[in-house]
Each structure stands twice: as structure tokens, then as C-alpha cells.
């Protein structure tokens, strides 16, 4: 991901050495809402797997 630098009133890609007082930043790839939605979906799938496996493993044959 690209890192940007804000200096002298301008924003540009941070290439090479940067002054100590420069403001560096890189936007997050995903918002908290996206992360939570993805995490909840993964959680649901994971829980199904756990429950399914435990049901099979504890079934007496």
C-alpha cells in the first residue's frame, strides 16, 4: 500500500527520506464496518464447522 506525506501544504507519495516533522499516513484498506461484517460472516461459518464436528465426534455408534 502507498504511503503519503503531507508537507509544505501538499500531499504526495512518500518517496525517499522525509523531514522529521512531516505527516505520514496510509489509508486503511477496510473500514471498521467492513471488518465487522467480514468477521461476523467468518464467525458464523466457523461456528457451524465447530458444531458440526462436535456433533459427529460425540455421536455414539
Amino acid at each position, binding site marked *: 500500500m502507498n504511503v503519503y506525506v503531507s508537507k509544505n501544504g501538499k500531499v504526495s507519495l512518500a518517496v525517499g527520506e522525509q523531514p522529521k516533522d512531516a505527516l505520514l499516513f496510509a489509508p486503511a484498506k477496510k473500514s471498521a464496518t467492513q471488518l465487522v461484517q467480514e468477521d461476523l460472516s467468518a464467525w458464523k461459518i466457523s461456528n457451524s464447522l465447530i458444531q458440526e464436528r462436535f456433533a459427529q465426534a*460425540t455421536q455414539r455408534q
Partner: protein
Amino acid sequence: MAKTKIFISSVNEDGLKRLRKEAFDELRKLGHEPIMWEENLGPWPAHTDTVSKCLDAVGEADIFLLFVGSRGGTYYKEAQRTVTHMEFIQAYDKNKTLLVFVDTTVKAVFFGTARQWIDDFREQYISEAGRSPSADEVLAALRHHPGLPAHIDPYVWFLLHDLSVRNVFMDDLSLGVTIDWRNYFSDLLRRGSMLLPLSRSIAETGRRLAQSDEAFRLLSELISLQPKTGGTDYESILNAVAGRMTGGRIEQRYGPYVSEKVGTYGDCIGATLYVREGDKMRFVAKCADVAWNRSFRLDDKSSYVALTYQMNKDIVHYTQSKTMFYACFKHGEHVLTLHYPADPDWDNRKYITYQESVNDAIMNKNPYVVLMVKMILGGLPT
């Protein structure tokens, strides 16, 4: 390589002696490490507390194997339990794998008569005395039960009742019929093998539960901070949020398996909140001693608040001269900034190299908490 330790427990009664010995020998032949009082546990050295020794051995075992016949075993008045029963309680409490075999005749009487009778007795006792009956009282009543076989020790019913209350499965034990341990343990291995690959899913579920719990606690606190007279106490909200945002490790991940620490960041030392008004970001509130301006122009490229609003994304900013990370969250017209001290090892070059790790550590540490804070400050997510 570690062997499976199997504690073999039962009352020392004639009918079970051969079975216990066979189980011990067979399990050892199969490569396991059986533990049994008369074979390799015993009252050594002299003056050993034998009960404690048994309970310690149960605690060290992986599997607790229990045979139940018609005898109850040595009853300890002070504990109100037999040694065998205490061994079972220890195994249950320590979450051991429990393998319980009960004589088929005993089992049939228990499920046919004794279990329900004990349930009814306890219920009636509680309604009359206002407390649960002691083991002595249950056993005394069982001794006078005319429908239970006299040759079976009443304690057996008491023990089996405890097992059934705890939902412990009881396998059939036919005295005189050899148990095929090879097949039994092969099946156990099959069942265990189905669960081992779940370890990562279970660990992930634990992590998510911890994050959700943290978010729920914060949400509860934030709701309690809302003034009853209306309006929003932003400063209190920022204080509550900043107080919960802890620092931590910044790790470089190499796929899902390996990661290494590349630095740390400190606990959140303060926060600011701005809202857009026309072409400016207007100061709303702050907590702790952090720098703030009355407003920033939206086109002010030196302001992380204005930059975050303009880019319409959550962003971590860094300045080497202040050794500080600024985590900026945009939601609706608001920008919330949390100030985290960077450890002194960070500089511009290191930030450029590891900026994804920084984002991951600070922004993604608990997205549930971030979402809650956004909802409180700026309404439901869009």
C-alpha cells in the same frame, strides 16, 4: 513422545479385579501409560496420603477410565463421598476425557428405578426442609428402599445419579465379556482427530468473543454517559473511549501462521472530535491534554482531521517529530482522533516499511469497539 496417561479407577471388588488387570495390561501393550493403584501407584512412600496421591494421579492423567459394579467403595464421612467418587469429581473438574463403564444389570436398575426415585426424594426433601439432602441422608433413604436389589451398595445409585446429572455417558459393562480396547481406542482416536483441526477456529472464536465483550462493555458505559436531559456529553464519551484504548505490539505477519514483533505503541493518551460545518472542521470536544484548534479548513493539507474527512476513510497518521500515531476515524460528518505514543524506535523510514502492520495493530485491533464508538458519535453506519 508423550504417551496417553489413563487412570483406571474402580472400587476394589472381586468382579472387577480381572477386568482392571486386563485393561491395564492391554492398554500398556497398545503403547499407552495406564495408571492403577495396585500396579504402579500404590501407597509409596510410607505415610503417603493415599487419597491425595490418587487425586494427583487423576489430575496428571489424560483419560479417566471408571468401572462401576455393585460396590460403592470406601466412604469418607467428612467428604460425604467415596474415594472413587472423589476421583471422578477430580477428573470431571479437570476436564479429563471420561470413559465410564457400568455393569449392565446395575445400569438397568438405575435407569429403571433408582434415578427417578432419587430425583423425587431430593425434590420432596427440598420442598419440606428447604435445603438439599446430604449424601448421608440420601444413602439412609436408599438403604430402606424395598425395590432396589439388596446386594448392590446404595452408594452406587448415589454415584450413578451424580454421573447422570453431569450428563456423563455410561457404556455397558458385561462382566465376563472382554472389552476390545484396540477398537475402543481406535474409535476414540477417530473422534479426537475430528476435533483437533478445530483448534484454530476455536481460538478465533475466543478472540471474537473477547472483542465483542469489550465492545459491549464500552457500549454499556457510553449509553450510561448520555445525559438524561438530552444532548450529548462528548467529553465524557471521549474520556471513556480513550481510557479503554490500550497500546500493544505491532506485528509483521507472514500469512496466517507466522508473525514477528516490529515495534510497540502506548496506551491512548487523549482524543479529539471534530464535525464538518461548511468548509471547515469545527472542534467539538477533547479529552486529556492534547493539542486542538478551534477549526481546520477542509483543504488544510497539514491537518490530519481535514485529510481524513476529505479522504473519507479511517487513517493512521504518524509524525516522527512528535513520536505519535494519530488514529483518525471518519463517520458521517465527524472525525474522531485517538492519540497513541509511538515507541522511540519508530522513525519515518520504519513507518513507511511497516505502515500496514501499524494500521493492522491500531485500526483493526478491535473493529467492534470502533464500530460502537462510531455509532454513538455519528449515528448508525452508512
